[in-house]
């Protein structure tokens, strides 16, 4: 899919769909949105739909940042306190490391 060749309305529609899709617990989709549409939104010379694309890209970036913060916090907490939580920690664990902690 080459963005260059799409007409502007379609670019906007695609950006919007990616933005909306990201709300389904899909920060990766927001990341793809930001990277893919970055040039379109900020580097290219102005065109009608660009303002809206810019908003979508900015909001996707915001959402992405939020998710990254939440995930990092959770992972840090989990790694630090997993052993101390005993059963709950094991219950939550997908893989449990072997050997002496």
């Amino acid at each position, binding site marked *: 899919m080459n963005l260059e060749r799409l007409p502007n309305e379609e670019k906007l529609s695609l950006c919007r769909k990616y933005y909306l899709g990201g709300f389904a617990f899909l920060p990766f989709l927001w990341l793809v949105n930001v990277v893919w549409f970055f040039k379109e939104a900020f580097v290219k010379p102005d065109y009608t739909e660009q303002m809206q694309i810019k908003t979508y890209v900015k909001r996707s970036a915001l959402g992405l940042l939020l998710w990254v913060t939440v995930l990092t916090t959770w992972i840090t907490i989990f790694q630090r306190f997993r052993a101390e939580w005993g059963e709950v920690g094991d219950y939550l664990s997908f893989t*449990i490391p072997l050997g002496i902690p």
Partner: protein
Amino acid sequence: MNASDSDEDSYNERTALVPSENPAIPSYTPDSDLDPPVDTPSKRSGVSRRAGPVAVDGGGGGGSDQEADADDEELTLKYGAKHVIMLFIPVTLCMVVVVATIKSVGFYTEKTDQQLIYTPFTENTASVGRRLLNSVLNTIIMISVIVVMTIFLVVLYKYRCYKFIHGWLILSSLMLLFWFSFMYLGEVFKTYNLAVDYPTVGVIIWNFGAVGMICIHWKGPLQLQQAYLILISALMALVFIKYLPEWSAWVILGAISVYDLVAVLSPKGPLRMLVETAQERNEPIFPALIYSSAMMWTVGMASPADAQRSGQETDEEAEQSSRGAEPENRQPRSFTEDDLEEDRGVKLGLGDFIFYSVLVGKAAATGGDWNTTLACFVAILIGLCLTLLLLAIFKKALPALPISITFGLVFYFSTDFLVQPFMDNLADHQFYI
């Protein structure tokens, strides 16, 4: 683990190397008024531009008779060299992923008594003869399953049961993207002894899978789609490496290259019929089956053939939407010459990726050391080069497996049994040559 049918069938039609078509412009004569002007400037002007339309297809090729044959040959070669590189990179990446996994994650090389239902005969037999017989029987079963699935798919395609095929492909890619990657992630974490919790894993797999489905079956950035196709080929290859017994794997590789040769080249071969039907109808072949190395764009002309050129999202639905999109995109004759430079690229079936990686992965898993692996890797790339050369000459769909797999097998066995002991002996005796 018993892999479901949906994996098996999907690579049958993947083992073909298809030139990206410039379709259905019947033989070009420069005097004809019917010719879309897009071809005219492309044929008269710049050499590099002609590399795309001319070298790749039969229809455009007819017109180039007009021009000097010397130009034609030069173009064919130009087409070949650039596209060879464009295919080397994904094939190499896929093989690197598979070899890296095999060497680091023990799971995929662990001996297991579990086998796929397609290879019911065990190889833990007492005598060599029995083992050989079992592997041949396994191969026969496997190949028959593949043949049946391919024919089934071609029949479905011929009778336009697109929804069924579409559903089948979606199910198959769903399984690959979610279930196999979940297993893979689990094994990687176990290997590196990391503690990971279910919520994190859930988020990772959900994101990976969902974005993968979107990119492959709908619209997404080209590089991301290519990356996903490479990853699912690698995952599939890893499953094969784990669950195919030793000797059966090698015999299957040999047999499937023969099958590929027959299926693509013989007039009644299922793969050939698939490609031809797709070309007749000017439809791209399904997504999730073909890796396309470049974005094709419809150089907007009135030719109905444009439908086929629209890109690597070769999904039935995407096809409708891209066909729908074309009328708006069409800017007849106002395209500057630069636009015509859009590269058409070459397509390689995903089955080819899978079997190349199986060969190299098996060499890495069971071969002596890195010599064998590297030898197989080089052999496959050489085979790919030759296949692309043939593609540039013959300009029609060609099987990509036979040459590469043959070279790969030859190199594997000769390196393992001849070169390896030779090098070891030399090193033992400190004899440098």
